[in-house]
């Protein structure tokens, strides 16, 4: 089930300083004109990766966007914001040909913009001409959560974050509030989807379902951000008291649940083995049925997570409950 890879070939590149979006658009069109399929452009949204003053992070965001563009028809821009620097705008454009495993060839653009000086504080106005008309604008913040006053979000229809990388609990509360105004895609939540589905599936069936109402002990292991989100999900969905939920730092994710129903005990467990690329789940009722299941677990790239996450439109109330819930655990 290995995914075949795309083949990528550079077509041309261009760079300019202190120019506006019209010039950049013209440059992109000219570069696309060098390719037979260059006139063909499909896009479903504009993605702006917003990076603060961090060169390594800018390179990382560029890599992710490059991979995303090769798979998903979007206009993607990496914007490095440097408000404290000498005013100016630098733009680099690269147009590449991507040949998909099916043989389909598409032309994709990389647009990297460095915004310096006061303009960086007004990205909402600066970026508007770069967005595609009538299509949603998605803002991806690779390493942080949105600030209280984040001008670019005024132009965004959705924001993408990764709560797994966030250690500041108060910031998570802000994220929960932001989700009331704007859909939020949390890459950590997307990454955990197969684990949640597998765990939920353990409780399907007439004999096991009643145990969901008798959960006595939950133990969640994993890295801090990921673990809190998973525990928050269980707490909010099962309406558990914080005293039932126990968190333990670990390198890999696992969940143990003990429950009772009509005097019978049952256990449910899930353990991800990222080295082996699989996750093992099992359930058993004392003196009753038991079953286990192993499924393959891929480690999707950030680009794949963004792609999957954006496939779901609207608010996700289960996620909102999950990001709100860990606060209660922490404050106990």
């Amino acid at each position: 089930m290995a995914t075949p890879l795309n083949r990528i070939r550079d077509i041309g590149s261009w760079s300019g300083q202190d120019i506006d979006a019209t010039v950049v658009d013209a440059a992109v069109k000219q570069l696309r004109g060098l390719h037979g399929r260059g006139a063909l452009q499909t896009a479903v949204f504009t993605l702006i990766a917003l990076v603060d003053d961090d060169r390594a992070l800018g390179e990382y965001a560029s890599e992710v966007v490059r991979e995303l563009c090769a798979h998903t028809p979007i206009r993607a821009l990496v914007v490095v914001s440097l408000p404290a620097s000498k005013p100016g705008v630098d733009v680099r454009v690269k147009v590449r040909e991507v040949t998909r495993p099916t043989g389909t060839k598409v032309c994709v653009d990389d647009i990297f913009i460095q915004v310096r000086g006061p303009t960086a504080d007004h990205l909402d106005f600066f970026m508007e001409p770069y967005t595609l008309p009538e299509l949603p604008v998605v803002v991806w913040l690779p390493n942080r959560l949105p600030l209280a006053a984040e001008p670019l979000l005024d132009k965004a229809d959705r924001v993408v974050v990764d709560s797994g990388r966030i250690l500041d609990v108060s910031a998570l509360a802000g994220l929960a509030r932001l989700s009331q105004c704007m859909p939020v895609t949390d890459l950590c939540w997307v990454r955990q989807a197969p684990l949640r589905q597998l765990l939920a599936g353990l409780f399907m069936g007439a004999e096991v379902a009643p145990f969901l109402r008798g959960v006595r002990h939950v133990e969640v292991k994993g890295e801090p951000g990921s673990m809190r989100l998973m525990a928050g999900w269980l707490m909010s969905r099962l309406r558990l008291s914080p005293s039932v939920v126990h968190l333990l730092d670990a390198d890999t994710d696992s969940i143990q649940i003990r429950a009772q129903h009509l005097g019978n005990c049952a256990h449910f467990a899930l353990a991800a083995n990222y080295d082996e690329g699989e996750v093992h789940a099992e359930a058993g009722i004392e003196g009753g049925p038991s079953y286990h299941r192993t499924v393959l677990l891929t480690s999707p790239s950030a680009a794949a997570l963004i792609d999957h996450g954006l496939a779901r439109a609207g608010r996700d109330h289960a996620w909102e409950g999950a990001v709100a819930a860990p606060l209660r655990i922490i404050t106990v």
Partner: protein
Amino acid sequence: MTSENPLLDTTRPPPPPCVVVIFGATGDLATRKLLPALAKLALIGELPAAFGLVGVARREYGDEDFHAVVRDAVAKYGELDLHGERVWGDVVREFRYVGGDYTSSETFERLAAVLEEIDRTRGTDGSRLHYLAVPPSLFPVIIAGLGRNRLNTPLPQRQDAFVRIVVEKPYGQNLRTAQDLDDCIHRVFSERQVYRIDHYLGKETVQNILALRFANGVFEPIWNRRYVDSVQITVAEADGIGDRAGFYEQTGALRDVVQNHVMQILALTAMEPPITIEADAIRDEKLKALRAVAIPAVDRVHDSVVPAQYTEGWVAGQRVPAYQDEPGVQPNSRTESYVALLLKIDNWRWAGVPFYVRTGKRLPKRLTEVAIEFHTAPHLPFKPQQTAALEPNALVLHIQPDQGVTLHFGSKVPGKGFEVRSVSMDFHYGSTFPGETADAYERLLLDALTGDSTLFAASDEVLQSWRLVAPIQQAWERHKELSQYPAGTWGPPEADRLLERDGRSWRRP
């Protein structure tokens, strides 16, 4: 059941616990299609955690022999890498096998005992999905066996359990045998339990016909006789009959493709908007569309139907033999490898709009498409030579191999003069949504497990499809004027004349 489990993602709940029972578990369909599809579903976590599989076949295998069959089938026809095969091997170890004669009650008694044991130890709740992956002649005997042994309904104490049965095509050989099969099934199963599979309907683009038509405001207002001049449905295969001569000689293009795939595509193209996107609402509208298709009189069939057989020719650079020279085919065979037909739909939306259908083997390339041809503009304010290269507008829905939509429209040729030429605007699913698409069997198995019958044909639809082709079968029994076409061409001249007499021509796909 899903409402009791707050952990479930209600946008796509996984299938509930159940046991899949495959009749014909060591046969071609099971090994080539079903088992690889189940393996894929299992490894990506789409099968229920509490799951069992029982293979039933005539061979006297033990469980371990069956495990070897399953592993080999998936290794040969599946898409698993070594890691996937290892994990699948663990899943397979729990599968069970019941060997025996389908006419023997003892076979079904042993099956019932195995199912009870799985329910007890694996928590599968008494839910079953019976899959008939056997020749149609065995359908009645297996269905009767399931009924006799009370394997057709859940036990009374299992309130949430389900028992469903999946029936593969061909669903009968004609209207009478289809009706007989339907009666046989309905003596044992209610219609809600029956899932008549047509793998064509698992295709994303067939479903996208629904999305294109009913999720967009721009198409539906022009999807009628006022704007549409004609509709062409093409289901073309470049391959010959391969090693299926025994099956194909008994079936032919009419029964193999027109009665099922074509009628389903026609119904999806012509149907009225459903009230909801749920199975019953869609089935109701499809049935209404099929009921509106005019049934030709037996003595007029030859005016609107052209059967043909391929002669030797060239396909994809290879010289290929005539149909009658294919291995296993009778030298004087009268089986049609091609059929073209003109259908009319007698309702307000489509009155007067011809639906031209063609399907065949050894055509130039494999493709399935629906072309909606629109009326020409009522007045062209150009000189005739300026629009000499202008074709009528057309919207082409590509179903396979490349899924997508193409709109053909006129555009001015750049330059000083004023010349209008047809151009096409393509939308390829592969370019816009390049992610992996589920195989048709994976999708249909999952739907059958979750109880979503949208992509399965209802009894009424199947019988109505047979009613539509019945006069053709009767006319051919009396006299069949079999035309010929060289392999590698789009069909015989007689099929061209079917359109030429209306002032139209087949599109060149």
